[in-house]
C-alpha cells in the first residue's frame, strides 16, 4: 500500500512538532525516518498510525484519504519502542489479540494455526505459553512484531523498535527485520535516531530536523551527497573547518578547495575522519598531533591546525607519529556548505 503525506502540520500546545511535511512511500518500500530527538519523526509516525491527529494536511493510503479513519480501522501494524506487550497475556494470547477482537470472525483453530505460523516466522516456536516478563527484550520485540503482523496490516510502522536493546541484539534484529521485510513485502516505515540502523536497514532514508525534512534519498545518496551541514554532521563523525568562499573556491588556511555553486562569503568545510592523509611535510593544512587513541582496527588522531581548529582523523594502526608531531593534512572528498542562512 502506497502512503502519501501531504503538507502535514502538528503543534503541541505551543511547540510546533511538524512543519508541513510531505512524503511519499511506495508500496513495499522500507523507509527510515531519521532524526535527532525533537525532530518530529515519532509524531509523523504516530499520525500515519492515527494515534495523533494532524492539525493541517492529509494522509493518503493508496488513493484513499485516511486522515479521518480511526486507528482501529486504519489497518496499520504498530511496534512500540518498549514493546507494549500485554503483561497479563501469554505470548500466544498477545499475538492472537488482534484476531480475537477483529470484526472478521475466525475459529479458535484458525487463530491457533496463525499464531503458530507467526511464532515460527519470528523464530520463537515453543514460547507460546510464556508471559512477556519471562522472555528477553529481543524476544519481546519479535513478539510485538508478530502481534502487529497478525492482523495483516496494510502498513507496518515501527517506533525506535530496537532502541531499548543491546548493540549485538540490535544488529541481529536489524538483519532479521530486513529479511522478514523481503519475505512479506509489506510497506514499512520506521523511526530511528541511529544513522547506522537507518542506513543498514532502509531502502530510503528521510532525514528530519526540527519538524522538517532536510533530505530524502537512498542510503547511497544521503551518504555520498549530503545536501547540507546538518545531514553531513548527523550521518557520522565529521570535521568542520572555517572557510571563506570567493568565486566558487573555498579557502582554508590559504589552501583552496572546490566550492562550485556556493555563494561568496563565510562557509564551512566538512570532511570525514577517514578522508585525511597525514604528511610530515607537504602542501596541506599545517597541524600538530594532540593525542593518539588506539582502536581495534585503526588509530584515531586528534590534531589542531595552525589557526587553532580541532580535527580528528583515522589512520592505519601502524601510524608511527605521536603527540606533538608536526605535519600537514591533505583532505579528500571535502564538502563546503555556506554558513549564511539561505
Amino acid at each position: 500500500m502506497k502512503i502519501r503525506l501531504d503538507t502535514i502540520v502538528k503543534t503541541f500546545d505551543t511547540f510546533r512538532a511538524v512543519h508541513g511535511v510531505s512524503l511519499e512511500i511506495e508500496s513495499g518500500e522500507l523507509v527510515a525516518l531519521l532524526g535527532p530527538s525533537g525532530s518530529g519523526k515519532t509524531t509523523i509516525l504516530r499520525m500515519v498510525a492515527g494515534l495523533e491527529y494532524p492539525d493541517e494536511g492529509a494522509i493518503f493510503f493508496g488513493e484513499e484519504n485516511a486522515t479521518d479513519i480511526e486507528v482501529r480501522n486504519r489497518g496499520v501494524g504498530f511496534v512500540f519502542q518498549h514493546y507494549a506487550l500485554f503483561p497479563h497475556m501469554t505470548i500466544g494470547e498477545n499475538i492472537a489479540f488482534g484476531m480475537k477482537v477483529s470484526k472478521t470472525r475466525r475459529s479458535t483453530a484458525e487463530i491457533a494455526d496463525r499464531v503458530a505460523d507467526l511464532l515460527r516466522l519470528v523464530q520463537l516456536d515453543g514460547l507460546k505459553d510464556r508471559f512477556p516478563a519471562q522472555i528477553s527484550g529481543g524476544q519481546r520485540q519479535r513478539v510485538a512484531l508478530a502481534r502487529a503482523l497478525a492482523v495483516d496490516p496494510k502498513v507496518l510502522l515501527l517506533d525506535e523498535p530496537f532502541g531499548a536493546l543491546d548493540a549485538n541484539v540490535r544488529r541481529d534484529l536489524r538483519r532479521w527485520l530486513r529479511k522478514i521485510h523481503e519475505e512479506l513485502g509489506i510497506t514499512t516505515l520506521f523511526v530511528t535516531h541511529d544513522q547506522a540502523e537507518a542506513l543498514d536497514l532502509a531502502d530510503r532514508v528521510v532525514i528530519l530536523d526540527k519538524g522538517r525534512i532536510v533530505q530524502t534519498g537512498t542510503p547511497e545518496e544521503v551518504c555520498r551527497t549530503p545536501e547540507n551541514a546538518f545531514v553531513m554532521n548527523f550521518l557520522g563523525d565529521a570535521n568542520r573547518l572555517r572557510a571563506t568562499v570567493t568565486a566558487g573556491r573555498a579557502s582554508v588556511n590559504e589552501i583552496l578547495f572546490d566550492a562550485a555553486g556556493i555563494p561568496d562569503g563565510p562557509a564551512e568545510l566538512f570532511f570525514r575522519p577517514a578522508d585525511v592523509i597525514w604528511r610530515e611535510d607537504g602542501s596541506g593544512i599545517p597541524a600538530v598531533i594532540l593525542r593518539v587513541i588506539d582502536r581495534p582496527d585503526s588509530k584515531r588522531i586528534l590534531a589542531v591546525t595552525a589557526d587553532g581548529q580541532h580535527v580528528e582523523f583515522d589512520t592505519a594502526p601502524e601510524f608511527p607519529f605521536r603527540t606533538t608531531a608536526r605535519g600537514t593534512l591533505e583532505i579528500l572528498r571535502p564538502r563546503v556548505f555556506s554558513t549564511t542562512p539561505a
Partner: protein
Amino acid sequence: MARRILPGLPLTLGITLVYVAVIVVLPLGALIFKAASLGPGDYWTIISSDRAVASYRVTLLCAAAATAFNLVFGMALAWVIVRYRFPGRRIVDALVDLPFALPTAVAGIALTTLFASNGWFGSALSTLGLKVAYTPLGIIIAMAFTSLPFIVRTVQPVLEELDGALEEAAQTLGASDGEIFAKVLLPQLFPAILAGLSLSFARSLGEFGAIIFIAGNQPYETEITALLAFIRLEEYDYPASAAIASVMLMAAFLMLAITNILQTRALRYTVKG
C-alpha cells in the same frame, strides 16, 4: 557480614514480632480464650440465635452493597483523578481521604442529620417515598462513606503506572474502547481492585461508630453484629460478646485468605520463569 541492609534484621524483626504479639495476637487471643470458656453447646446457641443470625445477615448484606457501590464509584473517582486534568482535581484527591480522618461518630451524626426525614436529603428523598435513616439503606450509606478511600487508594497508583502504550497497541490491533477496558485495563487493575474490595468490605463489616447513629438499631431489622457484641458487653455477658466477636473475626480471616489466593492467581503472570 556479606551485605548490610539498614536498619538490620535483628532490630526490625524484633520490633515486628513484639508489635504483632502485643498489639495483634494478644487481644485476639484473649477474645478467643474468652469465647472458648463457653462450652461448644452454649457457644453454638449464642452464635446461632435468631437475633445474632439476623445481625450477620444485615451486616453482610449491607457491607456487600456498600462495597459494590464503592467499586463503581471508587473506580470512577480513581479514573477521573488519574486520567484527567481539571480545576479542583487536587482538592477532590485530598477529599477522598477525609473519611479516614473524620471521627466515624461525627460522620454518623452528620449523615443522620442529612438523611433524617426532616434533613436536607432525607426530606427530598421522603417525597419520593424513600426512607434512608433508620433503615438498612442508612447502614449502607454509612458503610460506603467510611470505606470509600480503600478502593480509590488501591486502584489509583496501579492506574497511574499503567503504560499508555498498551491501550494504543490495543487500538492499532482493532480493539474497541469496551474491549480495551475489559481485556487490557481491567485484568491489570484486577489485583488492586480485589485488594480494595476486601479492605472496603472488611472495614464495612467492622464499622460501628458511623452506623449506630443512622441505623436505628432495631433488633432483627437494622442491628449490626458489632452492635450486638457491644450490647452483650454492656450487659456484662462477656463470653457471649466474645463469641459473637469471634464469628466476625473468622469471617474476616476467611475473606482475607480468599482474597490472597485470588490475588496470587491474578498476579501469576508477573512471576519470572
